């Protein structure tokens, strides 16, 4: 198909023609009988992996199968926060790899993903928080990841709505700021990768649910049974977020995963009032303002595993009481829409991007609440791992075997709260 470049000029030209000449952003195709690589899961991670397989590894026949519509899972259900100021060198390298790819993604894909480096500020409310965040700041600086310490007054200057009154229940004692962090337009990431991958010949097959994984007598993956027929594949990469356990169980692979509901919400749109992303782990809330003007708000997962894509009212109540405490002028704002995703969580809260015990079967999962920010990096590394049948040095630590061997990358525990 002809490549339709996106630009102001193309927009203008096609406007003259009443916008009648646009073509589908990705080809609508029937599944072929066989592929070299099939990616299961048409979210940003899966579509991105397909794109990099085609663009960087020159894999010939690639398909992405998606049980619903692309970008309909966690890619389209998150709060779009992007940052890389993680504590451990392994994590920081992984997420910073991603941030670097984010920085050029709109141009590489020729699709404006609206990556907005407006800064992510993590608030410290206790002496313990201060210690933890300063440890992050030092570790990040030494790793070459930007992260700086702000006093409460500096935090307020960076984010004027912030309440730094020392008499509130959990006063702000300071903040760690990553200026390169920010947000992006979530849907555009899926569509941009889909369009770019499709142009490179990747088949994107929607409404195609995997119902079985066939293995040859040697145990190697040979085909996927799907609701749209049998699809042969020499390699299968699973990038199915909350549904990973269900998909991999089709191949008899057990994983250290649990799937939890994660809710987020937006307010009605208002004129620009919130310039950055602010996060508070101690009182469980984070907020930014979308380019459309909505306050985009999230918090932690619900308490129990579930695949219902909805969460509990009391979780929202706790999220919003925290937001109102930190930003008391927002109390009169109104929630416009709430939604839920299913996040797959590993015991150490770090992802798995790795080979599985089944030859030819690869998995990219366990992103918990942090998958969106990793999209390009994760996709890039997953493509590498599939293409070369071995991990890239950056994702080499993120194996399944680390749980057996005790090499956990435990970011959550690193922020331990005992005192």
């Amino acid at each position, binding site marked *: 198909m002809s490549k339709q470049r*996106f*630009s*102001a000029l193309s*927009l203008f030209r096609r406007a003259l023609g*009443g916008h*009648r000449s*646009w*073509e*589908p*952003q990705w080809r*609508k195709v029937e599944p072929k009988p066989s592929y070299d690589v099939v990616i299961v899961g048409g979210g940003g991670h899966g579509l991105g992996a397909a794109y990099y397989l085609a663009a960087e590894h020159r894999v010939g026949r690639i398909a992405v199968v998606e049980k619903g*519509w692309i970008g*309909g899972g966690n890619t*389209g259900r998150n709060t779009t926060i992007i940052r890389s100021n993680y504590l451990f060198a392994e994590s920081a390298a992984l997420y910073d790899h991603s941030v670097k790819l984010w920085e050029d993604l*709109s141009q590489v894909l*020729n699709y*404006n993903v609206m990556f*907005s480096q407006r800064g992510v500020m993590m608030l410290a409310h206790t*002496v*313990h928080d201060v210690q933890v965040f*300063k440890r992050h700041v*030092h*570790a990040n600086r*030494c*790793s*070459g990841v930007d992260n700086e310490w702000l006093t409460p007054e500096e935090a307020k200057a960076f984010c004027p709505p912030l309440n730094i009154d020392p008499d*509130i*229940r*959990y006063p702000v004692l300071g903040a760690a700021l990553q200026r390169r962090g920010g947000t992006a*337009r979530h849907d555009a990431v899926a569509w941009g990768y889909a369009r770019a991958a499709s142009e490179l010949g990747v088949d994107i097959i*929607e409404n195609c649910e995997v119902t079985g994984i066939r293995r040859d007598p040697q145990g190697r993956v040979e085909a996927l049974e799907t609701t749209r027929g049998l699809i042969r594949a020499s390699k299968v990469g699973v990038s199915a977020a909350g549904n990973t356990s269900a998909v991999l169980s089709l191949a008899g692979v057990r994983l250290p995963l649990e799937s939890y509901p994660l809710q987020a919400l937006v307010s009605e749109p*208002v*004129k620009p*009032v919130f310039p950055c992303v602010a996060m508070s782990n101690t009182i469980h809330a984070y907020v930014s*303002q979308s*380019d459309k003007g909505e306050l985009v708000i999230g918090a932690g997962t619900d308490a129990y595993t579930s695949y*219902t894509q*909805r969460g509990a*009212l009391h979780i929202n*109540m706790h999220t*919003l*009481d925290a*937001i109102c405490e930190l930003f*008391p*002028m927002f109390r*009169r*704002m*109104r*929630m*416009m*829409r709430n*939604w839920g995703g299913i996040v797959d969580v590993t015991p150490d809260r770090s992802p798995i991007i790795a080979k599985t015990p089944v030859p030819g079967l690869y998995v990219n999962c366990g992103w918990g609440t942090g998958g969106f920010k990793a999209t390009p990096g994760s996709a890039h590394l997953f493509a590498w791992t599939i293409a070369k049948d071995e991990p890239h040095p950056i994702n080499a630590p993120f194996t399944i075997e680390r749980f057996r061997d*005790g090499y*956990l990358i*435990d970011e959550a*525990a690193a922020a*331990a*709260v*005992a*005192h």
Partner: protein
Amino acid sequence: MSRWRTATGGRVDRTRTLAFRFDGTRYEGLAGDTLASALLANGVHLVGRSFKYHRPRGILTAGAEEPSALVTVRRDSARVTPDLRATQLELYEGLDALSLNRWPSLERDVGRINDWLSPLFPAGFYYKTFMWPKSAWKSLYEPVIRRAAGLGVAPTEPDPDRYAQCYAHCDVLVVGAGPAGLAAALAAADQGARVLICDEQSEFGGSLLADRHATIDGGPAAAWVAHAVADLAANPRVVCLPRTTAFGYFPHNLIGLAERLTDHLAAPAPHAARERLWQVRARSVVLATGAVERPLVFPGNDRPGVMLAGAGRTYLNRYGVRVGARVVLVTATDAGYEAAIDLHDAGVEIAGIADLRTAASGELPAAARAAGIEVTASATVLGTSGNRRVAGITIAQISSAGSSAARRTLACDAVLMSGGFTPSVHLFSQSRGTLRWSDDHQAFLPDRSAERERSAGACRGVVDLAETIADGLTAGAESAPSRTATARRIVATRPRSSDGGHLGAVPLASGASQKSFVDWQHDVTIKDLAIATREGFRSIEHVKRFTTTGMATDQGKTSNLNALAIVARAIDAPIPRVGLTTFRMPYTPTTFGTFAGPSRGDLFDPVRRTPIHDWAAAAGAVFEDVGMWKRARYFPQPGEDMHAAVARECRAVRSSCGLFDASTLGKIEVVGPGAAEFLERLYVNSWANLGVGRCRYGILCREDGFITDDGVVARLAADRFHVTTTTGGAPRVLAMMEDYRQTEWPDLEVWLTSTTEAWAVIAVQGPNARDVLRGCVEGIDLEASAFPHMSVAAARICGVEGMVMRVSFTGELGYELNVPADYGLEIWKAVHAAGAAHGGITCYGTETMHVLRAEKGYIIVGQDTDGTVTPVDAGLSWAVGRKKPDFVGRRSLQRQSMQAPDRKQLVGLRARDGRTLLDEGAQVADRPNQQPPMQLIGHVTSSYESAVLGSPIALAMVAGGRARIGQTLYVPMPGGDVEVDVVSPVFYDPKGERINA
């Protein structure tokens, strides 16, 4: 009275005139008006500018589905609320509303240029441009987009209003108090059920409040409503909640209601709650949520003055407002005729009725014709005219060949339209009930319920009034837990008006030059939908996200089905195949403050204070938050900063005596014949050999082998242990213990009781501690020989039965007095006074505690450990019961990785210059002068100025650290490396002589 207000009729109070302001202009309305009806009564139709094209916009509806007439309401500088719907705002004296999205004024808005440039702004245009040059996104494009986007202006001052919350339970919750809902509530109440009925409007009655034609039980509908409401109000088992929106349907029949308490009042009581969140758990739910009239999608359908037919009727019949003097009806249902007839009867000239249907027959069309109104069948709309208000409409008849004929332009000042009714299945869908497409109704209707729930009336496609009421009666009665009373019967008659309907664009709209709007608020036109499908966005979720149709503050209540039909037609698929956008809470926007409720300030989270807190506060203590506790961090004297205060406190403990409030430490009484075995299995330490009256430092690992908590455990009797935990870890440890006790080891007869708050704990630490306590403690010989380090005994402490533990977290001779909490304050004071007689006693806080323990190399779990540290890493291998066959975490510690020599281990660090205080969290490297990314081998966990040593000290976790003692390492700081010596983590009194004094 303005020419737009009728002389009589309606439910407004014509004796009460209310003044209000809109964009600074003063107007008058009547009590009972909404802002929308009052504006219309003043002939104001232009009320806002659209989001993207800044087109002039008016009032489309008369209810919660309004996409267009949004305003900001200001009560004072702090009480500013953006994005409110004029159709829902009850008028009050002094109401001050501002239009949105316009500059400099509503009439003259420069943003209007966007409308002329609109060909450049089709759906999703921003994905295709603004990419070059790259740096311009942040500096130019995004700021411009952000400024252009957004509706109202967010409040800038803290909201002073209160918000309330409550839980409620009922047998039957009825959502919606229209005919079906009222009938359901009456029927359920007849059966003795506990009923809660809510409606988003200020009055119960729903559609009946604007109905001139219906009769119920032989009288006017409004009279029946009044009677029904009175009946319900008189029943003590019924709760009636007007102005209350059921915004969310949560699992297991939990419904969230938002009750608006004061927004309709001119002068609310100063401290009255503004809104109340109800969390209602209902045995059964009856959804009687009605239906929303659909606009018609025709060219120029967004001009002010173009509104829904039902809204026109509502403004007339309920508010006594004529929406125009010369009105054209465009309809695909009989409801349009009903509106025409009502308006005609009220003296409005009806310039014509354009009916999209091929045949305009039936009772209501006949009545319209009889009234002399001209009716055009097989009609379509080709466009409208008028700038700030509609001035004309061009209609045409579709010939049998499908082209337009008999084109006519009718002058008018309002256009009413009716495209049919979309059942409000929002809550049903939120409950996870399944929807089915009904060809008969041209709508999605409730199919299978997921919860104990029934839909009744228009929300499930029942349209006839008599049937609606009967449906409500059945739903109510069958939802009641028991049915004993005979069923109530209600007789109702009303002309059928909702037959017919049209989905999607009107014929020939796509060829018109004027825009045909689907989503008013987000300015989504049929062209945008066409572009989306052309570009391959075919799932309705994709179309919605690409065009943003249905994603505005009305969440597509008037637009979703039209969008769906247009997409279905474009891709030639049946509507159900295209899908239905997901319904999510909230049904209508719901105030953050309502969710937050009273949880603010000190009620945001409990503030836990020890029995000694007030004394410490009076003594000038500075507190820190640890979990929910407030702990005294240091006790500055006049002129002292933290550093000086801590240095003084440290010196006092090392040289004489310090007093410390340790009451927040977690305490668990472990009792029963299996107590020792229980701890044996749980902790890394051995307990069987711990004698009664002795204490031991215990370490608790998770099953993965990492330290999760620590604390001293005292054996009070053979079958009784007093276990202490960290302050923050107490609930976690108790929960973990209960887990193992109940689920893994039910064979053990052991029970756990939290005693954290039963005891106040007063730590008396320092070389003079024994002397100070001698006069305070009865029943124990405190001498070292009789009561050595790590002893415990019951005693009378200042006259009260308590417990003394000889323990020390300072490295000094120390005791911890455990006294019943109510006596804590007085005994603290008594010990403080006793100290004065023995060379003085100094209160110290957590900061000094941290310094003192760091001088001794004692870890703080959560500071020196971080959830990745094993007992061996922390230098505590001496505590691990080597001979024990098992304990929680033991198996994990046997893994090779846990034994690796390069694991991070606890060491001490001292700056080589003897002066530099390291930063806590600073990193450690074994090579100097590295550039990022550096090879790092550890980090500083604790760092303090040591007053007693006269120099800074630090603890660190360093890879293979114990083998590095004596080496020089480097702490890379922004200004360069700090050279440090690796030393033993025990900086002070390494032999431990002082502690055993």
